[in-house]
Every structure is written in C-alpha cells, then in structure tokens.
C-alpha cells in the first residue's frame, strides 16, 4: 500500500498545522467520488448515492459550454442551501485568480475551494495565493509542471483538468498519464540533472527534488474532466487517480441516481472487473459526449490557466 505523509508544501509553511489539516481533509476524500451539483436536491441525490463530497456550481460544465457567457462562482443562496442539506463536505468553485471570490467562499465556510478552469478565468497570468487561506484548495493540472506550480501556491489537492463537460475521458487520461510518467522520470534522474528538469517543468526545485525521492505528489492526486461511466472512473483510478470528480456525467445522464451509485461502486472496486460490470448493469444512456479533436481551441477549457 502507498506510503504518504500529508506534509510538505514546498513553501515556507512546510508541515505547519494549518497545512496538515488542509491536506488531511483531502486524504479523507481518497477512494471516493466528488459530484458536481447545482442545487440542494441534486446534492441529496449525490449524498444518498455515496458521494464523499459535492461540488456546488452554477451550471454543470456541459451547460456552460452550450450556453456560453461568463461562468462565475455559484450563487451564495444555492451554496448555503446545499451546505444545509448534506453532511458530507461541500466544495465550491472560484474563477482562476479571483481571490475575492475565494475570500467570499472562505467567509461562507465551504469545506474546499476549487480554483477551476471550468469557470471563466479572472486572471490570465496569476492564480490565487492559496497559502493565505485556512480553507483548502484543489486545482487542475495537465502535467507535472502545472501540478507543482499549484502545490507551490498552496493547493492541498491536485486533480487532472481533463476536458470538463465533454463526456470524453481522453484528456483526463492524457493528463494523468503525463503526471505519473513525469514523476517516474524524476525518480530515475541524478541529483545534478534535477535543476535542468525543474527549469523544463517550470516547477520549484525543492518540490522536484521531493518527487525525485518519493515518486509521488506531496498532496492527493485526483482525476476530473470527462468521466461519464463507471468504467471511466475505474480507468482513471487504475492510472493512478486516488479519487474521482464527476461533473456533467451524472446529472446530464438519463438516470442520475443509478449512475451516481454505479460510479461510486466502480471507483471503490476499480480493480475488480466483476464489480465494474455490475456497476454497468441496468444503466441507461450516458451523456452524449463530444469529440475533443473536433473542438476548436477557443472551446477548450483545459488550456485555461497554466
């Protein structure tokens, strides 16, 4: 089994108590499914299906795609209702770099903040300096460099970006494989090669050296973006994801309750094909899905924030 101690931020507050409880909550979510919800009713369905947390947002990613416009932090009224309705942790999204939205969500006392590329970025260069908050943050990453930059800024959890709202797992797979193989490569390198590698990755040297030693991120590594079926969840788990986020995949399917339960089952029993088979029995139609190769650059969410 894996060996991991939840400390080491690559920043000045390495191992501080605040950091430990932030990464600690991320540890508690391992092995579970975090579901996107847009109202209290959906949150209840998610909790009843066995979700380990819910993500409150205004519109699920596939609707954001369809409807366009600026996607922002969800309405406070809705987040509050969701917080009142379920006992599992409630996460909510802020726009990349929008530290004022983040402060609002911290004041609201959500349990986790997702600084997310799914919303319209507020800052095209800078992310939120997440060390300043008591509430933990999760951020998306497409590769190890992005992951380590976000951790250096104070993210207590990393998730693949995938391509949200596409119902297509290909980008999540690409991102998870990239992160895992880049970490593996670091473990094979000599000390004197790590500075150059840190430069190539655009990542802080101390974190690069840490990965070279442990072969793992210092925070939990989850997967998100395009996961629509139980087998999709099992796939990303097998590739190294310690838990999964499911967005449009549940509430844009023909059978949200059954699908939510099935994805939870497959995520837990990801190594047991029979259990994943059982999870697939009696499921209706998955969300329609988009071919990422046919999409235009401007429609891709995963390229936001790097």
């Amino acid at each position, binding site marked *: *089994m*894996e*060996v*991991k*101690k*939840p400390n080491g931020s690559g920043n000045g507050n390495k191992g501080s*108590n605040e950091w*430990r*409880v932030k990464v*600690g*909550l991320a*540890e*508690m*979510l*391992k*092995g*579970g499914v975090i579901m996107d919800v847009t109202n209290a009713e959906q949150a209840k369905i998610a*909790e*009843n299906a*066995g*979700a*380990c*947390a819910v993500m409150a947002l205004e519109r699920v990613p596939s609707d954001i795609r369809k409807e366009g416009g600026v996607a922002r932090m969800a309405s406070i009224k809705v987040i509050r209702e969701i*917080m009142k309705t379920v*006992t*599992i*942790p409630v996460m909510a999204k802020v726009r990349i770099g929008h530290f004022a939205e983040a402060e609002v969500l*911290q004041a609201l*006392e*959500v*349990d*986790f903040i997702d600084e997310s590329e799914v919303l319209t970025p507020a800052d095209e260069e800078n992310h939120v300096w997440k060390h300043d908050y*008591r*509430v*933990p943050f999760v951020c998306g990453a497409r590769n190890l460099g992005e992951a380590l930059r976000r951790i250096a800024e104070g993210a207590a959890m990393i998730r693949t970006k995938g391509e949200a709202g596409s119902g297509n797992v290909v980008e999540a797979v690409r991102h998870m494989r990239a992160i895992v193989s880049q970490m593996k490569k670091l473990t094979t390198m000599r000390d004197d090669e790590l500075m150059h590698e840190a430069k190539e990755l655009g990542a802080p040297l101390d974190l690069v050296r840490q990965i070279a030693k442990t072969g793992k991120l210092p925070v939990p590594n989850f997967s998100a973006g395009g996961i629509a079926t139980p087998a999709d969840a099992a796939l990303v788990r097998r590739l190294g994801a310690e838990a999964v986020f499911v967005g449009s995949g549940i509430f844009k399917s023909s059978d949200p309750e059954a699908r939510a339960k099935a994805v*939870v089952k497959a995520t*837990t*029993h990801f190594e*047991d094909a029979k259990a994943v088979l059982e999870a697939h029995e009696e499921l209706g139609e998955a969300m329609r899905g988009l071919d990422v190769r046919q999409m235009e650059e401007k429609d891709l969410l995963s390229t936001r924030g790097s």
Partner: protein
Amino acid sequence: MPERKEVKIGILAVQGDFGAHAAMLEQLGAKTAEVRTPADLEDCDGLILPGGESTTQLKFLQEEGLADKIVKFAKRGGAIFGTCAGAILLAKDVKHPQQDSLNLMDMTVVRNAYGRQIASDVVSGPTTLKNEPLEMVFIRGPVIERAGPGVKVLAKYAGKPALVQRENIMAATFHPELTDDTTVHEYFLRLAGTGAKQPANGVKSSS
C-alpha cells in the same frame, strides 16, 4: 522494529485515509490488507475503520454485506479501531444528524461537532498511554458526548473523551495516523496481538 508475533490488520479501504493507517502499521512491523469484501477480513487479527465520510462508508458496509461481517468479527474477539468516521460507525448512538451504525461501542457521538473544515485543527490532550500530551489532528471531527459504563477513556481533549476503549474495541475522534506519533497504533497492535479473549458484548442493541 518492535518484536512481536506478526499481526495482520485489515483496513477498510472503501473510502478515506486507509493509506495513512497502512503506512503507520507497516512502519511498526504489522502486515496490512485492504478490506473491500467480506472475504478480505477472513484471516485478520484486527480491523481499522479509517477516517473518511461515515455516510459514504456506512452505505457501502450495508450494501456489500460487510456490516454484519464486522459485527461478527467483533463478537469473535477481533480487535477493531475506528478513527473519526470509523468512531462514528462504531458508536451506539449517532447524532447531528441521527445515523445508523455498527453499534459496537456504548457511546453517543455528535458528528461534525466542531463545525466545518475551517474549524479543523491540530491540538493536544492528556492521555493515559504516555506521560506527555498526545498530538491530535481533528478534521471535521465528531465529539463523544457520552461514554457508557465500562468504556475506558484513554485520552481527552477539551474535557471530552477523544480516545476510548471497551474490551477489544477502540475509537478515536482524531487522526493518530496523520501524525508521526505511533503510540496509539502500538497500543492497538498489542490489543490485536493478544485479542480473541475478551469479545465485545453487553452493548445492548437499541433497535
């Protein structure tokens, strides 16, 4: 490595920080096994119910037939240690809100009693297991509001029981697996190693 006969500890690996428990137990020389099905529990001397979300874990235990199996394991004298969500699963009475449980420890537990994540903290409190205070990591932690007769309090925080034991069952409202202090896990390994003598009984079912 401390010397003792090799003890095999199952860790409920449904959801939560089962990996952190495994790391600590392996550091102490114990064998560990991830438990996801009733069969996984067969040859274990002890079982850890890790932190995580108790609602998520409970649903899984009930649906996979593991709940009954764990209760039988306890009645046979198998040692069980629940941390945080695991303590909630063991408690006879669960409040805020009410929730079913395995009913293996006569105590009343209030879920998320300190508030939301922003109230999570690292603190310390007195323990009978060693001379210095015990470091305690609370993450959306519960509070043991009532400990029944025969429940030993091994550590306290803010005047409330934080680590309790009754015969072969132990429960903590905090996360010893997220610290570098192995005291609590060593105690549990001793309990598992010498177990099978004092099965948990006498906890009357409320249902």
